[in-house]
Structures are given as structure tokens and as C-alpha cells.
């Protein structure tokens, strides 16, 4: 309950901050639409030249684009602004004040900044997913849609956990302010099914920087390609990664000793 209250407070503050830059918001939304146009055009180019990409049809790739945009929104609306603030607070010691608050510091650090206008991207993403699923020729059962939603969420938890680990490393290595670049760098690989990548790239995006876990794998669930056991493994992985991330965060906090000492 307290968490929800805090979230809505954060949200209000961030709305107020962004209202100061209304024209910027309009420009950003226009640019965002431009990129959506480009993404759809690039899918159109691909499917002008082929009927399937790794066995997937156009509808499935549009749905994948929707899932990709969900993850990407988390990246831009949450991960970027909070990481920037966090890195700053480690350098200048203002992290002290965060730790003093009677709230879970991990929650505070990862949710206090939200790029509010990006929320509309979530609607766009969901629209893409719905359109894509309807375009796909195979019939999808309710169970497949349910596992799809579950695995999308658990995929995002995996990415969130990796983010926590990456920024927690800054507690040990203060100068490590490139901490999320590696995550951002491999982001683009989420636009296409990881099954078309060569094995080495597939291993990187599945196990090391698991973008595919949040994009390709939910889509595979939607296509009914995953066994029940696999679904449970992925759900388990997300729970485990969140637990590990919390542990790393706690031991990182113990390392933190302020900026002047």
C-alpha cells in the first residue's frame, strides 16, 4: 500500500516536471511516431522479400515489435533517468539521503524518476501486440495468451534484475558510470526473433544479456512452442534473478561509504 502511494507520488512529481517542457514532449512524441513508422516500414521491406522470417509471419513480428517496445519503454522511461540520477548520487554522496529514508532503497533508486510521456508508448505497444496477434494466422488459445503475458512480465523482471546488478556494481567501482550501456547496446537485437541469429549471438542475448528472454521467448509462448516445463523454468529464472539482484544490492549498500570518506 505504501509502495503504491509512493509510486503515485513519484508519478505526480514527474508529471509536474515534464509539464514544464510541453513543446519538448510534443516533439518527442512526433519523433517516436517517426521511429514507429520506420519500424513498420522495415518489417514491410523484409516481408516484401520473404514470407517468413525464421518461420515467423508478419503478424508475429508486429507482436514481437510490441513486446520489444514494452521492454524499450522500461529502458527509456525508467532505466535511463534513474541510472543517471543514481550515478550522480554515488559521485556526489547524495545517496546518503536516499539510504536514510524509511523505504526500501532499491525501490527508491529505481522508481523515483519516470519519463512520463513515455507511458503512451505502453498503449502503442499493447496495440501492436493485439494487432499482431490478430494478424497471425494460427489460432491462439487463452492458455497461450496467458503464458505470453506471464512470460512478458517475467522477462521484464529479468531485465530489471540485471539492471539492479549493473548499477549495484557502481558501489564497488565508483567510476563505472557506463553501467547500462551494455544493456542498451544489445537492445536492438530484441526486434527480431533470436532464432534467426547465429548460435553465438543467440547465446549472448539469451544467457548473458537476456534481451531475448523478454522478447523472443514470450512470443514463442504465444506460438505455443514452449512446453509447460520450459514455461516454469523461465518463471523460476525471473524469481531467482530478482532474489539474486536484491542480495547484490544489499551487499553493495554495505560497501557504500559516502563520497567524502
Amino acid at each position, binding site marked *: 500500500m505504501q509502495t503504491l502511494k509512493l509510486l503515485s507520488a513519484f508519478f505526480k512529481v514527474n508529471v509536474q516536471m515534464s509539464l514544464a517542457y510541453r513543446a*519538448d514532449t510534443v516533439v518527442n512524441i512526433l519523433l517516436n511516431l517517426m521511429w514507429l513508422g520506420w519500424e513498420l516500414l522495415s518489417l514491410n*521491406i523484409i516481408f516484401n522479400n520473404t514470407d517468413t*522470417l525464421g518461420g515467423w509471419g508478419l503478424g508475429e513480428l508486429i507482436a514481437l515489435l510490441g513486446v520489444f517496445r514494452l521492454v524499450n519503454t522500461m529502458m527509456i522511461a525508467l532505466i535511463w533517468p534513474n541510472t543517471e540520477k543514481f550515478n550522480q548520487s554515488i559521485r556526489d554522496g547524495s545517496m546518503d539521503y536516499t539510504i536514510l529514508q524509511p523505504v526500501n532503497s532499491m525501490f527508491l533508486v529505481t522508481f523515483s524518476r519516470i519519463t512520463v510521456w513515455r507511458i503512451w508508448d505502453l498503449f502503442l505497444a499493447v496495440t501492436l501486440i493485439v494487432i499482431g496477434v490478430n494478424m497471425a494466422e494460427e489460432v491462439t488459445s487463452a492458455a497461450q495468451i496467458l503464458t505470453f503475458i506471464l512470460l512478458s512480465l517475467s522477462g521484464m523482471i529479468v531485465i530489471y534484475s540485471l539492471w539492479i546488478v549493473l548499477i549495484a556494481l557502481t558501489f564497488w567501482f565508483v567510476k563505472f558510470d557506463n553501467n547500462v*550501456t*551494455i544493456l542498451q547496446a544489445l537492445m536492438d537485437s530484441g526486434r*527480431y526473433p533470436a532464432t534467426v541469429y*547465429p548460435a553465438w549471438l543467440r547465446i549472448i542475448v539469451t544467457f548473458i544479456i537476456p534481451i531475448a528472454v523478454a522478447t523472443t521467448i514470450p512470443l514463442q509462448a504465444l506460438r505455443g512452442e514452449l512446453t509447460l516445463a520450459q514455461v516454469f523454468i523461465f518463471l523460476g529464472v525471473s524469481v531467482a534473478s530478482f532474489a539474486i539482484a536484491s542480495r547484490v544490492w544489499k551487499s553493495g549498500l554495505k560497501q557504500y561509504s559516502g563520497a567524502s570518506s
Partner: protein
Amino acid sequence: MFLIFKRLWQVNWAEQWQYRANLLMYLMYWLVSPIVYLAVWTSIANVKGDVNGFTANDFITYYMVLLICDQVTSNIIIHTFAYKIQDGSLSGELIKPIHPMLTSALVNNIAFKMLTIMGLTPIWAILFMLFKPDFSGIVLTNVLLAIPVMMIAFFIGYLLSAAVTSLAFWTTRVYSIHEFYFALILLFSGQFVPLPLMPKLIQDIAQYLPFQLLLYFPIQLILGKLSADQIVMGYIMSGIWLAVAIVFFSLIWRNGVKRYSAVGA
């Protein structure tokens, strides 16, 4: 003049060398898209045999050469210069008797380029072993012909980006404009896919724009896919666009500097 450039080089090289870890991150970031495109198109070509005449090896060689071409012809002036106009630190450079964009910033870009190419070399070698491109179609004459093309292309791209960057004299939203400019490059340069696979309309427009000179033209030239006529035509287009870019940039720069009044003035 030579002495000035020599000193500028020493300063800028030392400056870029400081940030070599950042540079490696930048390389990683920049590498992923071409590799993803390569994987997507080769997988299609492998299933169908060829895509409109492009075999899997054609795609592999295209993107492998693209990695080099893009490093040579691209620039980062928007990131190293726009903020100077915005926060007023340009003032100090304006009173020097040399052009800020055509000397120091230019040398800075080239130093950055040298370092990224040094970083790219081992990565490229690894990718070469992973993808095993068959480069047997390449002849030395074409590579030699491509060198001046890429150098001219770098200057065309640099001047156009410098012109876009100079829009910071008028607007604070120069980064948004640059994002739009970047999308144009993506659309018309052959970065996503070789131009013949693009929709007809885009191909027709691309012919008349400078962006295909940055990537598509030099890549196809190196791969030996162009006829003598096409090569001559590309050279002529490069010359025309270089002239246009010079005029365009000087117009914008001259008017921009007149408008410039540093923060606090």
C-alpha cells in the same frame, strides 16, 4: 597551418585516448544493428536461396564492408559541438583565428575515428572468422577507387552534420532535428539493407540524395558490383554533393555566428 594541425592532432588524440573505455562501449553499441541486419537477411537468403539476386554471401560481405565504411564516413560532431553553442563555451573558440568546426572539431573527429578503427580491427577479424565471408570478388583497383570516394563521403557527411549542428544557433531542439536527420540516413544510405531491396520509391529518391554516397556506393564499389558507368556517375555525384555541402554549411554557419550571443550576454 600545418603546424597548427599537427598540434591540434596531438591535443585531440590525447583527449580521445583518455576515453578509450567509453570508446569501446560506443563500438559495442554501434556494432549490434549491422550484425542483427546481417543475421536477419542471411537467414532469409539461406531459406530462399537468394533474395532478389542477393545470396547469403552477398549479404555477409555487404555488412562486413559496411562496418568499415560506416566507421570511415560517419562523424560525431553533433555530440562534440552542439553543446558548445548552447552553453556558450564556443566564445573562447570564436576569438581564435581558426575556424572552430573545420579545424579543432574536425581533427577531434578524425582522432576519434582512428581510435574506433583500431578498436574495430580485432572485432572485425573475429566476425570474419564467425561469418566466413567469401571476398573473392574483390579486386584491388576497386578498393583503390573506393578510397577517395570514402574520403569525399566523409567530408560530405561531416559538412552536412556540421550544418545540422549549427542549427543550434537558432533552436535548443537541435538534438531532435539531428534524430530526424539520422533517420534520413538510415532510410536512404543503404544501412538497413542494400538499396535494391528497398521499395521502388525510396530507391528513386535515394539516387538524388547524398546519403547513398556514404555507404551504399562505396560498399558496392569495393565489392565490385558496379559497372564503369555507375562508378563514373558516383564520382560525379560525390563532386556535386561536396560542392553543395560546402556552400550549404558556410551559409548556415555564417548566419548562425552572426546570431550567436553567448549565455549571459
